[in-house]
Every structure is written in C-alpha cells, then in structure tokens.
C-alpha cells in the first residue's frame, strides 16, 4: 500500500438476505483520483459506494481509510464520515432549513466552527457554484439542478478528503444534468479525490482518471477510461458498452 492510497477495499462482501449484492470486491482509491464506477442496474455499484462510508454495513471484508479499518467493530464511524462527503441521487437536502443552514449545521455542530466562519465558507462555496443569491431560500424553492449543486457544496463545507457521488444526475431533468456535471468536473480539476457512480458515460470518459465496470456484485474490468471504452477486454463489458454508448 503506497502512501498515496486513501481508501483500500479488501474482499468486500454484502448480502441482503439471500441476495449477494457484493461478492468480494477489492479496490484502491489514491489521492487525487477520480474513480468512476459504471455498470447495469443491480450490479452492486451503489451498494459498493454506500459501503465506503458504512451507510451499508458490509457482511465481510475490510475497508481501510487512511490505513484504518473502519468496518471493524468499535470504530467511531462518525469521525470518518466527516472526512467523506456524500452526494445522493435524491439530493436529501434538509427541507426545514435554508440553503445556508443546510450547509453550516454540520460544520457548526460537528467541527465546532463559529457561525461566522461556517457562513463565510458556505457563502464562498455558493459563489463558486453560482448560487449566492439562493442562500436564504428553502430547498423546495430550488430546481433539481440547484438542489444537487447545493448538496455538493454542503458536503464540501466539511472539507472532506474524498467525495462520494451516488448517481448524482439520475434524478435530474435532462437540461439540468450539465450544470451538476460541470461542478463535478471543476472539483476533479482542482485535484479532489472522488468516487462517482454514474450512467453519464461522457463524464466518465472525460473526467474519470480510472474506470470500474461492475456486474453482478463483482468488478469485471478496470482501467483507464479511454482504454476501457475503446478496447474493452471482457465480453460482458463490451456488451454493456454497446448498449449505452
């Protein structure tokens, strides 16, 4: 394991009753990497991502975050979750709080920042995604694309070491997909470590630094996005790509 490794997953398994969602997945995410995970529905890609911050508890296997096995019992997972920002398909903004409150509640309560500090950082981030004028709006007053951009900067307010994206554009109207992908592209360009589950193949090819193709709870193929898209080795990968490209 090199010093650049941020997350290392070893032989991860997850069962939901009789269903084996993950059947022994191993991977490594290095600092600054943008790992894109693609695959058909039910292939386990979302489950894999949700296991990384233990929203799903793995049935077996190890998840090493900065060298520490966070899936082991008695680990304070809350401390690690603060270092892993997560963006959901359904945004999951807090509807009873303004945009600004959404972004500052965790830094104030968990990182013990002062309100001024937290709000200053939040406003700077809002400005970056072009939503400074919506600071006092409630989530119900925002469009889907705006909601997802807020969800991204809400996670960024915690200064995470890695950002996890679980199909961030799948619930959006088509014309709003671009604005969200643009924010993600900028994050990738500034060197953020990201793991992205997506169906956006253009984004995967262009922004991803490595690509995983999953099927039936296993990693079928991995490599550089360009290689994988242009010269898929596995017949299952070829079949999937021929359908989606």
């Amino acid at each position, binding site marked *: 394991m090199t010093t650049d490794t941020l997350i290392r997953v070893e032989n991860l398994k997850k069962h939901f009753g009789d269903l084996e969602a993950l059947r022994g997945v191993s991977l490594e995410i290095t600092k600054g990497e943008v790992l894109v995970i693609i695959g058909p529905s039910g292939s386990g890609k979302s489950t894999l991502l949700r296991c990384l911050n233990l929203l799903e508890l793995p049935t077996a296997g190890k998840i090493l975050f900065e060298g520490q096995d966070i899936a082991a019992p008695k680990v304070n997972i*809350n401390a690690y979750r603060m270092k892993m920002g*997560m963006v959901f398909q359904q945004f999951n903004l*807090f*509807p*009873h709080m303004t945009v600004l409150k959404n972004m500052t509640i965790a830094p104030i309560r968990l990182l013990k920042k002062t309100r001024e500090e937290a709000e200053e950082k939040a406003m700077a981030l809002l400005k970056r995604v072009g939503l400074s004028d919506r600071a006092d709006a409630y989530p119900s007053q925002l469009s889907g694309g705006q909601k997802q951009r807020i969800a991204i900067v809400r996670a960024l307010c*915690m200064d995470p070491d890695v950002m996890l994206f679980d199909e961030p554009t799948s619930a959006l109207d088509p014309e709003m997909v671009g604005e969200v992908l643009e924010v993600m592209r900028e994050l990738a360009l500034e060197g953020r470590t990201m793991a992205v589950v997506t169906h956006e193949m253009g984004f995967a090819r262009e922004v991803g630094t490595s690509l995983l193709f999953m099927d039936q709870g296993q990693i079928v193929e991995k490599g550089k996005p360009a290689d994988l898209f242009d010269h898929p080795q596995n017949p299952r990968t070829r079949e999937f790509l021929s359908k989606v490209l």
Partner: protein
Amino acid sequence: MAGWFDLVRVKFIADFVKDNRWRYIVNGLGVTLEVTVFAVLIGIVLGFLVASIRSAHEKTGKLKLANAVCKAYLTVVRGTPVLVQLLIIYFVIFGSMPVNKVIVAIIAFGINSGAYVAEIVRSGILSVDPGQMEAGRSLGFNYMGTMRFIVMPQALKNVLPALGNELIVLLKETSVSGYIALQDLTKGGDIIRGRTYDAFMPLVAVALIYLAIVVGLSKCVALLERRLRSSDH
C-alpha cells in the same frame, strides 16, 4: 308561555344561583383544565421518550430491553379503558396513601395519553424520508444528533395537528374523573343535578362548555394545519 319562562327562571336560579351553585361548574372547569394541561405535558414527554426508544430500536437494533418495556406499556395502556386505569392508579397504587386527587388524575391521564402520543410521534418519524437520516449520518452526525437536528423537527411538523387532536380527546376523557370523586366539570354538573333534581340544565350547561372548548381547539388545530401547509418548506 309566560308560565314556561317562569319555570325556566326558577330552575335556573335553583341550579346555578342558589347557594352559589355556579361554583360547582366554574371550579369543576378549573379542575378539568388543570388535569388536561398537565396530563398533556406528561403525555408529550412520555410519548416522545417512548417513540424515540422504539424508533431507535427499529433503526439500530439496540435498546432491546427498553423497547420491550415500551411495547408492554403501549399494549397495556391502549388495551384497557382509561377509566379502569384511573381506578387502579387511585385505589390500588395510591390506595393506602392520602394523596391529592388532582395529581392522581394528572398521572393517570398523562400515562394514558403518553401511549397515544408515542404512536403519533412514531408515525411522524416514519413519515420522514429515510434519505434524511442517511444525509445526516453521511455528514458525520451520530444517530441522536441526526434525530435531534434533522428528523425530529420534520416529524414534529408532520404530526402537530394529530397532537392537537390528542389534546381534544384527552380533555373529554377527563370527564370520568368523577369516579375517584374528583370534582371536575362533569362531576360539578352532576352534583348540581343531585341537589336540585333537575338534570336538564346543569348537564346541558356542562355539555355546552365542553363543546365550546373543543370547537375552539379544533379551530386552532385547523388553523395550525393550514399554516403548516402554506409554509411547506
């Protein structure tokens, strides 16, 4: 016609004016309101506690023993009439102690109401999208913190009207307090009936007072419901 009015006047004087009998009504109303308000407070505290324990158990699998106690409490309280609970608390639990009957009634109705409030609050917690809990946890909040800052405020908003209705139900249920010889509003009216042998006026007066309070409270609940819906964010 004039004879009928005279009869009403005579009865009114006998029922409410003579010997200051109106006091049975007014003092009784005071007792009824006192019991209702404090019982509701106990009910809300108890209800939130039980709902929190039950939800935490459902979500995390912890608190097994506490959850079992809560379930037993809900089963017993919701499975027996409130009057029987009141009688048991007064004659069995406080049986050999000199104790203020108002306090007994507050405890009995509070414990009773707590069970219903618990189920209302639990349904409110269940009505909040599970994604809210996940979002809170993913930011690093622990279970309690997520409940406190994210889930509960939304749950509470969803169930405020139902809690208002519980208050209305409780107000009417306290009318059985007379069984432990507590002089609440109903008992007050009944005492007047016993003194004057006129059932109509005192009992209808009591009924009208309950009705007025309930209609007033219902209006408040409806108003609350409308305001919550209009500020739906």
